[in-house]
């Protein structure tokens, strides 16, 4: 087990290194001169000396590998530089936005589970009957509908036509329903199909027949015996797709004027506020890499057979 963790952590470091290199390169490839951007933000006359001074102050006159080294060194101390626009440290900006996005994601996941579990179990119970077909159609729709369009339709229906839910802003629970549903729905219907597939497979295992033969009640078989085995692969895929969840959150945040990480990133893009974009990309990247690692390792905890297989391969 220890070797596996060690190898995975080494892999993690390599991946993070590539990620940092990638972000740094992109930042350097970005068009436009950040020095001019900063100076022009004050709307004052820019002289050559001002430019040269700021350039050396920011260290832009040194060779690239020195810049990368310094950048990396600062990164290790959680120093991502300062935002060109607000002048505040990027890490501070990110930290204030994280809880807001986390709240949205949490509620979206709750709604997702409330749809996925009943829908998945229902369609597994009535395979190829109408509940199953219904969930199949929902999954097709969920995979084909643009997220932001679903959100727009929901805003139109619930905020404008029926005026029962607010269309934007944060603070109250009624404001969270629409964005969380928009974000959760498309994932929920697809996961419901995965759960159904998992349930069907575990329902055909011998221990289910054994349980039936013992006279265990049908709902107990479905919810306890089969569900436990079926939920593991779904949880894995769920963990692995946290990244796409964050991606979807960007669109939803813009749509519902939700001042989270995604809004921060999109604003930064339009303002060419590169340190903030970079901070956002690094943060999400690190988050996703670590989640993947945790999911990978949880495999071995949940299913010891994996561990033996891996060790036999000598990895």
């Amino acid at each position, binding site marked *: 087990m220890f070797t596996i963790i060690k190898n995975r952590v080494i*892999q993690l470091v*390599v*991946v*993070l*290194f*590539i*990620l940092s290199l*990638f*972000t740094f390169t*992109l*930042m350097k*490839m*970005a*068009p*436009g001169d950040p020095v001019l951007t900063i100076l022009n933000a004050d709307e004052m006359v820019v002289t050559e000396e001002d430019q040269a001074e700021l350039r050396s102050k920011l260290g832009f006159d040194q060779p690239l590998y020195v810049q990368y080294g310094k950048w990396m060194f600062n990164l290790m101390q959680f120093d991502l530089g300062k935002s060109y626009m607000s002048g505040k440290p990027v890490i501070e900006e990110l930290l204030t936005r994280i809880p807001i996005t986390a709240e949205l994601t949490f509620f979206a996941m709750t709604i997702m589970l409330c749809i996925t579990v009943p829908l998945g179990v229902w369609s597994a119970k009535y*395979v*190829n*009957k*109408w509940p199953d*077909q219904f969930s*199949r159609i929902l999954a*097709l*729709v969920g*995979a*084909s*509908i*643009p*997220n*932001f*369009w679903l959100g*727009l*339709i929901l805003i*139109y229906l619930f905020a*404008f036509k029926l005026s029962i839910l607010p269309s934007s802003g944060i603070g109250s629970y009624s404001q969270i329903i629409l964005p969380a549903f928009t974000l959760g729905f498309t994932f929920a219907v697809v996961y419901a199909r995965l759960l159904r597939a998992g349930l*069907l*497979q575990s*329902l*055909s295992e011998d221990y289910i027949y054994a349980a039936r033969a013992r006279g265990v009640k049908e709902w107990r078989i479905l919810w306890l015996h089969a569900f436990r085995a079926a939920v593991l692969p779904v949880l894995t895929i769920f963990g692995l797709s946290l*990244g*796409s969840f*964050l*991606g*979807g959150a*960007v*669109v939803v945040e*813009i749509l519902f004027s939700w001042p989270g990480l995604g809004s921060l*990133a*999109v604003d*930064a*893009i*339009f303002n*060419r506020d*590169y340190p903030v*974009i970079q901070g956002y*990309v690094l943060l*999400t*990247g690190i988050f*996703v*890499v670590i989640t*993947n690692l945790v999911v990978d390792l949880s495999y071995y905890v949940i299913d010891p057979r994996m561990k033996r297989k891996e060790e036999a391969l000598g990895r």
Partner: protein
Amino acid sequence: MNVQVPRINRIPFFFKNQNLMTSCGLLFFIIITFITIIGPFIIPNEPFTANMAERLAPPSSAYPLGTDHMGRCIFSRLIVGAQSTLGITALVVVTVALIGIPIGLVIGYIGGRMDTLFMRIADGILALPEFILAIAIAGFLGPSLTNLMISIVFVKWIAYTRVVRSIVITERNKDYVLAAKVGGSSNWKIIRRHMFPQIVSPVLVLATLDIGKVILTISSLSYLGLGAQPPAPEWGAMLNDGRPYFQSAPELMIYPGLAIFFVVLAFNLMGEGLRDKWDVKSR
């Protein structure tokens, strides 16, 4: 994997055989392609000229779906938009395949160090979710359609390389390849004659399903303003354009959204049908 499906009775007509769904997708696809190609010749109005006297007009014989906030014919813009959305998507998917397939064939066949190196790079790139990577590239290089396309290509090719690589790795040690080698075939010939045909159907399935995803990504990012820029009749950009008016004129957002939905649905139906037909394992 031996999945035993419990009693099947009375499957509704639509799902009776997967071929029917595929045919629906295919029919959609043919109609869409047809409209896309002949579209510019049949549109009733000029899609770019603003006509403020006719702004937000209701559907009429002159404007089948009414006009938008600048008095432009929505119907004409949708049809011209099909050309840009589908054209961009086709270009992206073809480029991705042209980059991903050869790399997958070669590194799968050679293996060893090259293969390990590639897998590490791929892990690094894939650590970022597709959408966020697209945002990163659009963010650093500036929001434009070209940059959006570059960013999608940058992320997508890896999936093709991975699929091709894994097939080549399982095939390259089989006896018939050995026989071909003994028979004096060059490596190039083995790749071309024996490896390539194996990858055609999985790659086609992957590409068909990807088209839907690419359309969704392009339109989402265009909606955020990071892709096609406003005067262009790209569907996502049209939605973004009509957003301020959508309380008074919801049709500005309903039609482009429906267009995106149906096109993506068509490709998803087709992709899933092909997957079942060729029995390609989903990843």
